[in-house]
């Protein structure tokens, strides 16, 4: 049964529609990510769930509690929603010790002091902060501060945890470590997570389901592997990894890469719905192309215009017709030298209509 429900949620700032008619259902204990470029409406959506932004239209429900509904003139303020939230800039209070930061939400709830102490210590233990309890958060590193923020959100044992780009202020190494920690905490406590990020690998690694958003409009909601296997459109494809789009022309029942006079091999099957278009795109990822020999019937002929040894991988830019395709192979895989003619095999081609 779905636990968090957003029904026809719309948010307008003046003339700008930040979120357009969003419908969403998130299960109890699910980790749900909202992924998109900055300004796509993901943070606004999260802030509407938290109660920091009013809705222009629609409703937000958690369980059987209606939290926001402009139509019914209902609005539960953030302090009464019983959510945990972690912000990008940590937002730990520098004038309180680590312990006091975590105990603060518990004190507000007027719990007996023994219970406050116990739950604060539990939350600190869960985030490996017990040793730092009496320190000022300013003496901690970025990762440490974010742990304090996590512990503070955990302490109240929230139904829902809202995470707003919690890792993007951390360095890459720490980011990965914290990602694992968040996942472990969720397994242990069983809360639902709504996670906002612009980093696709973070979303893929953490989430049960991902929502990809662009300009306030949902592009796709799916499990990570399904998004990888079937990106719904050109935008989703380009957003979830490095990508090349190659212009393809459809002429006399054959497909030509723009500027090339050799038709694409039959092995690259053009989907039927593309054949009605004069021009469409072949989408590929650099790691999903191989170099093959010139006789391979599935090969597409091109010319290396740049080759760079990057250690683990070798990075190529290959020209086909007047188009350029990025190819990355392992350093031990066979590949042509700089400026050589070459033959490419697309391992996982996708086809999308040309951009307007």
């Amino acid at each position, binding site marked *: 049964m779905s636990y968090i429900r957003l029904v026809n949620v719309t948010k307008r700032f003046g003339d700008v529609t930040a979120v357009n008619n969003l419908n969403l259902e998130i299960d109890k204990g699910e980790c749900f990510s909202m992924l998109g470029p900055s300004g796509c409406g993901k943070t606004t959506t999260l802030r509407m769930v938290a109660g920091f932004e009013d809705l222009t239209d629609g409703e937000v429900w958690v369980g059987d509690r209606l939290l926001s509904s402009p139509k019914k003139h209902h609005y539960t303020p953030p302090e009464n929603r019983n959510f945990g939230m972690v912000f990008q800039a940590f937002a730990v209070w520098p004038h309180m010790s680590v312990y006091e930061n975590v105990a603060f939400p518990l004190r507000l709830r007027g719990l007996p002091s023994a219970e406050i102490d116990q739950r604060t210590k539990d939350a600190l233990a869960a985030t490996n902060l017990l040793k730092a309890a009496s320190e000022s958060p300013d003496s901690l590193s970025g990762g440490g501060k974010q742990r304090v923020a996590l512990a503070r959100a955990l302490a109240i044992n929230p139904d829902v945890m809202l995470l707003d780009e919690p890792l993007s202020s951390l360095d890459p190494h720490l980011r990965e470590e914290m990602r*694992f920690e968040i996942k472990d905490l969720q397994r242990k406590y069983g809360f639902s997570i709504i996670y906002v990020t612009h980093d*696709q*690998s973070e979303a*893929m*690694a953490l989430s049960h389901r991902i929502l990809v958003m662009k300009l306030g409009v949902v592009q796709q909601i799916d499990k*990570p*592997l399904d998004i*990888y296997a079937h990106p719904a459109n050109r935008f989703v494809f380009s957003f*979830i*990894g*490095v990508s090349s789009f190659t212009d393809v022309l459809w002429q006399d029942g054959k497909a030509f890469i723009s500027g090339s006079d050799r038709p694409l091999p039959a092995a690259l099957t053009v989907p039927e719905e593309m054949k009605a278009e004069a021009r469409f795109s072949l989408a590929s*990822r650099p*790691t*999903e192309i191989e170099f093959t020999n010139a006789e391979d019937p599935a090969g597409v002929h091109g010319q290396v215009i*740049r080759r*760079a*040894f*990057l*250690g*683990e*991988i070798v*990075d190529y830019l290959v020209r086909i017709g007047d188009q350029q395709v990025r190819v990355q192979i*392992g*350093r*031990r895989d066979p590949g042509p030298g700089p400026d050589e003619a070459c033959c490419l095999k697309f*391992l*996982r081609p996708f086809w999308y209509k040309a951009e307007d």
Partner: protein
Amino acid sequence: MQDIIKLEGVCKAYGDHQVLKDLDLSIRKGECFTMLGPSGCGKTVTIRLIAGHEVPDSGKIEIDDTVVADSSTGAYIPPERRGLGIVFQDYAVWPHMTVTQNIAYPLKMEKRPKAEIDKLVKAMIATVGMEGLDKRLPSELSGGQQQRVALARALVADPSVMLLDEPLSNLDANLREEMRFEIKALQQRFGITVLYVTHDQEVALAISDRIAIMDANGRIRQTGTPYEIFEKPADLFVFKFMGIANFLAVRSEGDKYYVGTGTQEVPWPEGPAGTAEKWVVGFRPSDVEIGREAKGLKGVIKRANFLGSTMDYAIEIDGEHLRTELVAHKAISQDLMFQEGEECYITFKALHWFDAKQLEEVGEL
């Protein structure tokens, strides 16, 4: 090939902190030479010594067979007469001058005729792809565009050497990638000597003809082509600095080498040269072959992460841990999508033996 920059026995200290000690360095005419090292290793000090913004405590610096600094004779040529182009990390384009004025400044200092200045500046603006932006002030340009202005300014007076001090570290990842190829293209086009300083090993590999790896104490550990540095690291520091590295502890018993605390032998034909008892084997994630067939070392998948285009596995083998990545497409098509807790087998495509003591010395990078 002729050396264009030569450093001999250069020392530099700030207070008690000895940054450079007896540094020797020679850079050949026309090459792209990179000094690569962790932050604070003294690479920026080196570039400032060459540029003339610092004076060596001892040692000698030559540019183009001219002594520009020599502590024994007290010789010192100020920066403005060294004929170098410099690009700084923070761009250092002058905010009160337009793109054109910035680029024209070095030529004005040389008192070239106005018509020539105009022509050269125009050509240089075209070269760095800034046409139409020539009247803008730096505040009206993006970071990448500002760095292009800095490059143009450094190149316009046809310097003998161009010095680049972490020029890309303030740019975002996409732009960084694009700019490094542009820098390389400019270097090849002008046939200019480039000294590039960075802590980013990927940039160094991508653009350099030769790389010098510097450690935190300002000592050069290895100098060589990108291929040599990556495939034939002189020591563990170089190996570790050049990319993600895995290490497994190995103990020797007789002529056998066992991984961790277990009884599995290292599946590699050659043993180490030496008699230490404790060893580590180092290898790159891409040198790990993971499979389901019983071949090589048996391990357990501790963590499986799908990262979009790659699968990331953390594997435990007899108390030792390693990380490897696999292109997701390959993992799916070859039945290599492991679950956490599953068993797997590991073989190697390449392996380096290091004395275990080295690992402790190098510590955290």
